[in-house]
């Protein structure tokens, strides 16, 4: 007979880790299943709005979260991606790409990931010049011409980092003007190393072993641009595909009430994967705490 945990937490970003810390303190028999530790917080630059830290970097804050979680002695399965969440008899089945687990309750705290372009060449050239995390990989493109796809704050942030490193930067923006903060736009427009291509859409990624060009469509004309790096910054989508039975918003965020309950009793959700008002590290952490406290009440009421 397979072990049945009281609680499985899916994800170990700010929401999942905080949920885990609360679960440990409530002595709930818990398993954490996660692809990575720290989530998007670990990829953030400087953080100046997490109470108690006037200034801390994303990776450092993620390390502190992790230390706090590992202080307690419960099971953590890292490098596993959840593929299915389903009700089975009186409990829940959580399937990953490597194992399957059972629990009486589940907290979905799987966060968000980068939206993909959905064009030809994207799968083949992922990690071969095609990058979804500028903060992580930008320095690998020091002598290269690169393209940043997007026009919002994250695209501008990537451009500002790349301006210092790459040989030349193209911004490929779908709409007719950039959307990000003025301050960043000004800095970018001053640079002689950046071209902004508005009303432009990437339609194909080309290369042999690595990226060497992109095809873009601008005002109905198609042209090819030689680049060795492509940074995709077109927003985020919730990691909620595995939760097929949960009610979600149009954009895929899991609907929760103010107790972090979903439409299925026993399944809770917290943080950026939900439709919570505003996505912030401190909000995600608070939501994680709330979710576990709800789980505690739910388990107590069923004893």
């Amino acid at each position: 007979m397979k072990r049945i945990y009281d609680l499985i937490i899916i994800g170990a970003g700010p929401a999942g880790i905080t949920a885990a810390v609360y679960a440990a303190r409530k002595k709930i028999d818990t398993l954490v299943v996660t692809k990575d530790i720290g989530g998007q917080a670990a990829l953030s630059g400087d953080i100046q709005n997490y109470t108690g830290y006037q200034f801390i970097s994303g990776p450092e804050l993620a390390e502190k979260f992790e230390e706090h979680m590992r202080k307690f002695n419960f099971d953590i399965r890292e490098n596993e991606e959840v593929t299915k969440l389903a009700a089975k008899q009186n409990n829940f089945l959580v399937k990953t790409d490597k194992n399957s687990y059972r629990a009486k309750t589940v907290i979905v705290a799987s966060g968000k990931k980068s939206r993909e372009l959905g064009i030809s060449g994207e799968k083949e050239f992922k990690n071969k010049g095609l990058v979804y995390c500028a903060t992580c990989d930008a320095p690998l493109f020091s002598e290269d011409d690169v393209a940043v796809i997007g026009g919002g704050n994250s695209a501008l942030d990537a451009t500002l980092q790349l301006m210092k490193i790459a040989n030349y930067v193209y911004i490929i923006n779908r709409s007719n003007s950039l959307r990000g903060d003025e301050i960043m736009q000004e800095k970018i427009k001053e640079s002689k190393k950046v071209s902004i291509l508005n009303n432009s859409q990437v339609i194909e990624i080309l290369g042999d072993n690595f990226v060497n060009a992109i095809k873009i469509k601008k005002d109905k004309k198609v042209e090819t641009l030689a680049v060795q790096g492509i940074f995709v910054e077109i927003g985020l989508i919730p990691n909620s595909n595995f939760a097929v039975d949960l009610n979600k918003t149009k954009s895929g965020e899991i609907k929760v009430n103010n107790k972090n309950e979903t439409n299925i009793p026993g399944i809770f959700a917290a943080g950026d994967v939900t439709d919570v008002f505003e996505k912030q590290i401190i909000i995600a952490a608070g939501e994680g705490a709330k979710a576990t406290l709800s789980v505690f009440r739910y388990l107590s009421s069923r004893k």
Partner: protein
Amino acid sequence: MNKKVKVYGLPTCPVCRRTKKYLEDEGIDYEYLDVSANHDFAKEMIVKSGQKTVPVVEIGGEIIIGFDKAKIEELLKR
């Protein structure tokens, strides 16, 4: 048996920090190559791994892309 462990990484990459911290916590000696500091390291890493992200961990000539604890343990045991 002592296999040589190399970590190709970047100071900006959180997963590289995690990889290094894990090796240190386990008491595994490793050589760290900052690919932003030396372009030859970057080229070497790209040729060996056939891709362009960090970290890349090399253990006894075998390559692991990203931080994969289970694989690191497996390669060290072999």
